[in-house]
């Protein structure tokens, strides 16, 4: 690429406009003023037109009582007392929940399918290939509707629930299961978990140093698991198991107690995960195939086992190809979660850009806020993935 010379000759003599740096400054200032002018004109005109049409503007509506109920609220919300501003947060939390669940599941499924597609096992490779082609080529909305209407709606009514141990109930209204309720003294367990995490980090660092110094390896993975599970569990038992379970029971129309996983959430989650995983599988396959064969052959010539070759040699190099593309898939998944509105999952678009917009009529404010949220989430995810990418990238020394 041609780059402008970085050393612009200073003006020796002559008029001011002959100086390239002055000219550059002038035109940039002109552009900035023009852009700001256009924005100011658009905003002013919008406000004037809305006013002329008798449409209220402003964000005052966020403090008004919402007065409608939402089927899944991760944060405190009541239709009696909460405001439209609160519906925004409730919708946002629901969007983040399904996005996070989707990203985790899509990554796991995508990796496994991508690896399976390269497997020497004929059947496994063909099955993985079929998976990719089927789920990649059907529109996501149809898949969401399929899971919701065809699969989950076929479940029995609450009274005929499929029951396991009299505490898990699966029916057309979702999965109802026991919910933990903490008793006094429970706080020690999360603290123990925190200590265990720090201990594991320390262990990993120590193990690395030791391997670098002596070449000897410690069984880091089993040790970490023992610490992570054992320490909190020991503390939990010592403090007298301060946890009770709220077991759901059918009373009146519905189950009371326990917690409920909405079928809308499950349908959306399954559809998003399976759809995105098909794309991630292809990314994983292309990433692995981009690693030169010589790398594998060199590992084999050292008699390294296949799993270790994959884990320590192939995948780290493939990651450099995969991370930017997988980031795009994560962003797509987050944006696609807005299709929730088709099946009544209360995400940001359904609750805020849908119901709240309709109850208040504040289209411009609501749509602006919603778009800014998706933009912010996407930028944050990109930034995190870029940091990861920078750490994974080839370091030439």
């Amino acid at each position, binding site marked *: 690429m041609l780059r402008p010379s970085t050393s612009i000759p200073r003006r020796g003599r002559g008029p001011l406009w002959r100086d390239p740096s002055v000219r550059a400054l002038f035109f940039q200032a002109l552009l900035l003023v023009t852009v700001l002018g256009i924005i100011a004109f658009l905003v002013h005109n919008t406000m004037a037109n809305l006013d002329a049409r008798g449409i209220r503007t402003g964000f005052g509506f966020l403090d008004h009582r919402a007065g409608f109920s939402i089927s899944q609220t991760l944060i405190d919300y009541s239709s009696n007392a909460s405001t439209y501003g609160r519906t925004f947060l409730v919708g946002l939390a629901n969007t983040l929940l399904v996005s996070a669940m989707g990203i985790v599941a899509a990554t796991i499924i995508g990796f496994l399918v991508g690896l399976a597609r390269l497997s020497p096992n004929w059947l496994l490779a063909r099955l993985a290939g079929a998976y990719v082609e089927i789920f990649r080529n059907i529109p996501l909305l149809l898949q969401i509707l399929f899971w919701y209407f065809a699969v989950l709606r076929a479940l029995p009514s609450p009274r005929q629930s499929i029951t396991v141990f009299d505490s898990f109930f699966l029916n057309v209204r979702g999965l109802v299961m026991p919910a933990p309720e903490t008793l006094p003294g429970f706080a020690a367990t999360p603290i123990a978990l925190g200590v265990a995490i720090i201990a594991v980090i320390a262990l990993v660092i120590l193990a690395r140093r030791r391997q670098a110094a002596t070449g000897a390896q410690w069984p880091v993975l089993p040790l970490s698991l023992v610490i992570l599970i054992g320490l909190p569990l020991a503390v939990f038992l010592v403090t007298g198991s301060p946890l009770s379970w709220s077991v759901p029971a059918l009373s009146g129309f*519905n189950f009371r107690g326990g917690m409920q996983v909405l079928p809308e959430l499950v349908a959306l989650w399954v559809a998003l995960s399976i759809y995105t995983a098909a794309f991630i599988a292809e990314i994983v396959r292309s990433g692995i195939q981009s690693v030169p064969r010589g790398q594998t052959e060199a590992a084999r010539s050292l008699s390294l086992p296949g799993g270790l070759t994959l884990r320590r040699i192939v995948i780290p190099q493939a990651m450099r190809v995969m991370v930017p593309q997988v980031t795009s898939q994560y962003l797509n998944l987050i944006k696609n979660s807005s299709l929730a509105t088709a099946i*009544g999952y209360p995400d940001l678009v359904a609750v805020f850009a849908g119901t709240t917009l309709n109850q208040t009529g504040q289209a411009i404010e609501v749509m602006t806020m919603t778009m800014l949220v998706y933009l912010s989430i996407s930028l944050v995810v990109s930034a995190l993935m870029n940091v990861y990418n920078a750490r994974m990238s080839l370091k030439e020394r």
Partner: protein
Amino acid sequence: MTIKKPWAWASTAGLLTVATLAPSTSYGATLDDVKSRGQLRCGVSDGLAGFSSPNAQGQWQGIDVDVCRAVATAVLGDPGKVTFAPLTAKERFTALQSGEVDLLSRNTTWTASRDNSMGLTFAGVTFYDGQGMMVSKDLGVSSAKELDGASVCVSAGTTTELNLADYFRANDMTYNAVSFDEADQTAAGFDSGRCDVLTSDSSQLAALRLQLSDPSSAVILPERISKEPLGPVVRQGDEQWMKVVRWTLYAMLNAEESGITSANVDQMRDAPKSPDDARLLGKDGNFGEQMGLSNDWAYNIVKQVGNYGEIFERNVGKGSPLELERGENALWTDGGLQYGMPVR
């Protein structure tokens, strides 16, 4: 819904664009727009038997649809000159505000906030309704007061959703709401057992009940938990257009009150029974021209669409599958609330 979603986005984008770019003096000439276009663009429900739904031939039918046809007849002299835009509850106001439709005739409740802060004006009431609840018969419930803890299917973005919360709160009961975008999905949710209760305006419940796999398995509870005056809506700031829509309704009501029907309107015009009839049918005075219409606007409406009673009977009354009573929708002379302002 794959087909309908674009409406929502197009409407919102349209509102943004219109609000951003249109010079602020260009609103207020809907009548001229409709005349020069030769078509009325009318927003209706996306499928609600008796109010607006496509029949087997793909033609829109219903009381809301007939209001659209009546307005088209008043303005253009032809009930066929209407383009129908099916809108979900959530899309309807943006579509009207942004100018996608000239008129919204979509079982919409007249409320203070809609009339005063959203740039909308209600032209009248075509149907006095009230919110009710429908439950499955085998639940054995006979009153809405017994619904504590129930799951309720409701359409998102409606007054129904707000009344529901208020009712359960006032009676100190809890509920889980499951909100869907479209009336069809809401009914399907109830049908498949996703909820115990389906709540909506009681006329809609009667319509939605017909769509259930077994209509006789559901029962509508006696309580009416709200007032729901439904009527056509126009954009605020266009008095002339609002009056055209309003007087279209009055013409249909006055025709019924005078006993003028689509069958006898010709002979009534040739030999009016009273000075009132002569004025209404354009034999005396220039009441149509005062609105920017032709003088035989009311004659055209009654001749080609019918009077209010005819429209009611064929769409939702005893002659229709819904079989609703006239009730408060009877004329004031029969003890109801429907009252046409005098043409004079």
